[in-house]
C-alpha cells in the first residue's frame, strides 16, 4: 500500500507521536506526584497564590479553541472552505490569547519575586520552591507546545487556503487537530494540579 494514499497509517504515526508527548509530560507529572506527597501543605498554600480567575479564563479559551479546530475539520469534510478558514483562524487566535494571559500571569509573579532561583523561593520553604519550580517548568513546557500547535494549525490554515487540504485529503489538518487537542488536554490536567490544589 502506498503511504501517499494511506490516511490510516498517517493517523497511526500521529497517535504514536502523541503517546511520546504523554510520556514527556508524564515524567513531569511523576515529579509532581512525588513532591506533592512530600509537601502537600506547601503545595496547597502555593496554589492559593496563583490567580484562579486567569487560570479559569485560560481553560475556557483552550476549550473554545478545541471546539474551533473540531468545527474546522467538519467544515473541510463538508467542503466548506470559507468556514474552515474562519474556524482555524479563531483557534489560532485563541492560542495567542492564551499566551498573552500567560505572559501577564508570569510577569506578575516574577514581579513579586517568585521565579526559579529567586531569593524568595530559595530561602523560603523547600516545598514552596518545588511547587513554583514545577509551576514554571510545566506551564513553560506547555506554553512551548501551544506555540508549536499554533504553528501546525498555521500551516494547516495555509494549506486550506491554497486548496491542498480538501474534503478528500485532510489528514494533515486532522493530525494538527489531534496535536492541538492533546495540548489542551494537558492543560485540563495542569489547571487543577496547580490552581485548584486544596
Amino acid at each position, binding site marked *: *500500500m502506498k*503511504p501517499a494514499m*494511506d490516511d*490510516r*497509517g498517517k493517523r*497511526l*504515526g500521529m497517535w*504514536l*507521536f502523541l*503517546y*511520546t*508527548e*504523554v*510520556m*514527556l*509530560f*508524564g*515524567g*513531569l507529572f*511523576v*515529579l509532581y506526584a*512525588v*513532591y506533592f506527597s*512530600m*509537601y502537600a501543605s506547601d503545595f496547597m498554600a502555593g496554589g492559593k497564590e496563583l490567580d484562579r480567575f486567569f487560570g479559569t479564563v485560560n481553560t475556557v479559551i483552550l476549550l473554545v479553541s478545541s471546539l474551533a479546530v473540531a468545527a474546522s475539520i467538519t467544515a473541510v469534510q463538508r467542503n466548506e472552505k470559507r468556514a474552515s478558514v474562519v474556524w482555524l483562524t479563531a483557534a489560532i487566535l485563541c492560542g495567542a490569547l492564551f499566551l498573552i494571559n500567560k505572559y501577564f500571569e508570569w510577569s506578575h509573579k516574577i514581579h513579586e519575586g517568585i521565579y*526559579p*532561583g529567586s531569593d524568595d523561593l*530559595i530561602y523560603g*520553604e*523547600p*516545598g514552596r*520552591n*518545588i511547587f513554583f*519550580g*514545577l509551576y*514554571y*517548568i510545566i506551564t513553560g*513546557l506547555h506554553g512551548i507546545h501551544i506555540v508549536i500547535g499554533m504553528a501546525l494549525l498555521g500551516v494547516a490554515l495555509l494549506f486550506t487556503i491554497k486548496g491542498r487540504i480538501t474534503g478528500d485529503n485532510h489528514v494533515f489538518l486532522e493530525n494538527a487537530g489531534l496535536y492541538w487537542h492533546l495540548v489542551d488536554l494537558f492543560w485540563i490536567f495542569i489547571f487543577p494540579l496547580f490552581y485548584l490544589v486544596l
Partner: protein
Amino acid sequence: MEPVRSFFDTPSPSRYSGALSWLLTTDHKRIGLMYLFVILFWFVVAMFLGGGMRLELMFRGRTLMGPESYNALFTLHGVIMVFLFIIPGIPAIFGNFFLPIQIGTDDVFFPRLNLLSWYLYIIGGLLALVTLFIGGPPDTGWTFYVPFSVGTQTNVSVAVFAAFVLGMASMLTGINFVTTVHRMRSEAMGWLQMPLFTWSIYATSWVQILATPVVAITLILIILERFLGVGLFDPARGGDPILYQHLFWIYSHPAVYIMILPGMGVISEVITVFARKPIFGYKAMALSSIAIAVVGSLVWAHHMYTSGMSDTAVFVFSLLTFLVAIPSAIKVFSWVATLYKGSILMTPPLFFSLCFIYLFSVGGLTGLVVGAAGADIHVHDTHFVVAHFHFTMFGGTGFAFFAALHHWWPKMFGRMYDFKRAYWAAVLITFGFLLHYIPMFILGLQGMPRRYYDYVAEFEAGNFVAGFGAVFMLVGLLLMLVNLLISLKRGTLAPSDPWGGTTLEWKTLSPPPLHNFVETPDIADYPYDFTDVVRDSSGDGGGV
C-alpha cells in the same frame, strides 16, 4: 532483457545526482548506508577513546593523562558508544535497509521523516563533537548523575542536549518502523510469518517510543537546573536526587534492551540460515522479544540498590530483574537447539554469532550476580559491573553488529569479502575481548572501583593484562573494518543469495533495485523453510 539497475545507480528522488542524491534521498537503503558510515566513524572514535583509557590504566600513577582527561575520556567513550553507536547501530543501519525488504515492501512509511532522523542524528553527533573543543569536555560519566552534573563547570549542557537530539532521532525512527510494520507489510504476510529480525526491530521500536520521552524530559531538566537553578533534585532546595536516578533509569534501563533486542534478531537470522534448519521455537522467539521489551521496562531501579531506596523496592526490582532472564534464556536455548543436528555451513557471520552466544551468556549470567540485591552491594560500582556491561553490550550487541555486517554486506554492496581475514579478525577480537574483560571481573570482585584513573598495588597485574587484551581487540577490529572496505573495490561479485537464506531479502538482487523487488515476491507460509536450500546444495556440497 535490460539488466535491472541497483539502487546505487538509481537516485531517489530522481532529480538529484552526485552527493545530493545521497544527502537528500528518501530511499531507505541509501539512508541505511549513510547511517552505516557515520556510525562506523563514531565507533572508531569511541574505540580509540576506550583504548586510551586502558593504556592509561596499564600502569599505576600518571602515564598518559591526568585525572581530568581520564574523566572526560570515559564520559565521551560512554556517551558516544551508547548514544551514537549501540542504540542506533543495528536498527538505524540494518533495520532501515532490511526491515522494508523483509516485509516485502519498497520503503518505510514516512520516508522524509526517515531522512530527518538521519539529520537529527548528525546534529546530535556534531554537538557531542563540539563539547570536545569548547568549554571543556563533560566529566560526569554517561549517566549525568546529579548533583555533580548540575554543579560541574564543564560543558555538560551541550552534551546533554546532544543526547536529547539523538533521543529524538531514535524515537522518530521507532515511530516510523512501527507504522511501517503495521501499514506496509505485504498483505500476504501475517504476524507469525514475519522474519525474526523484523520482530525484534518491531519490539525495539516500541521500547524506543515508550521510554525515550522520559529521558528527554530528564535531560531537559538537567539543562534547566544548570541555567535556572530550580533545585528539583537539590536536597537543600527541597528536591530529591534519587528521583533523578529513577527518571534516568526509567529510560536507560529499557535502553539496554533497545540495544540488545535487535542484536538478538540478527543472531536468530544468522543461526537459522547457516544451520540450514528452521529456527527452533519460532513463536517463542517472537514472543520472547516482546516479553523482554515489556518486563525489561519494569526493572530500572536495579541500578539503584545502594542509593538508599526502600527495601521493598529493592526486593521487587530484584525479582523483576530475575524474570527478564527467562525470555533471554529462551532465546539462548533456542539458538543452540537450532544448531543441534543442523547442516552447519561455517562462515564469518556464523562465527561471530557463535562468539555472541558464548559472550552474551557470560554477560547474562553475571547480570544475575549484579541483579541479586545482596551480591550487588559487594560489586556495585566496581570493575565487575564494567565487565558485565561490556560482555552484554559489546560481546552481545557489538558482536551481533559484526555478524550483521558480515551477513548482509554482500546484499548491501553486492560484493563478497575475504573470509580468511574475516576469521582472523574475529579470532583476534574475541581473544582480545576475553583477555581484556575477564581480568576486570576479578578486579571488581577484589574491589577495584570503576571510573578512577589510578589504583593501588594489588590491582596491577589485572590491569596490565587487560591492556594487552585491548591492543589485540583494536587490531582485530581494524582488520575487520579494513577487510570489509577492501571488498568494496576488490571483492568478487555476490550472487543474489550467497548464503542460502529464505527470507525475502535473499529473493532479490544484490544490491537490490530501487523498489527492492523486480516482481512482487511470494510470501512463504513460514519464513524459515530450508527444504529447497538443503536439496539444492546437497549436490555441490555447500552453498557458497
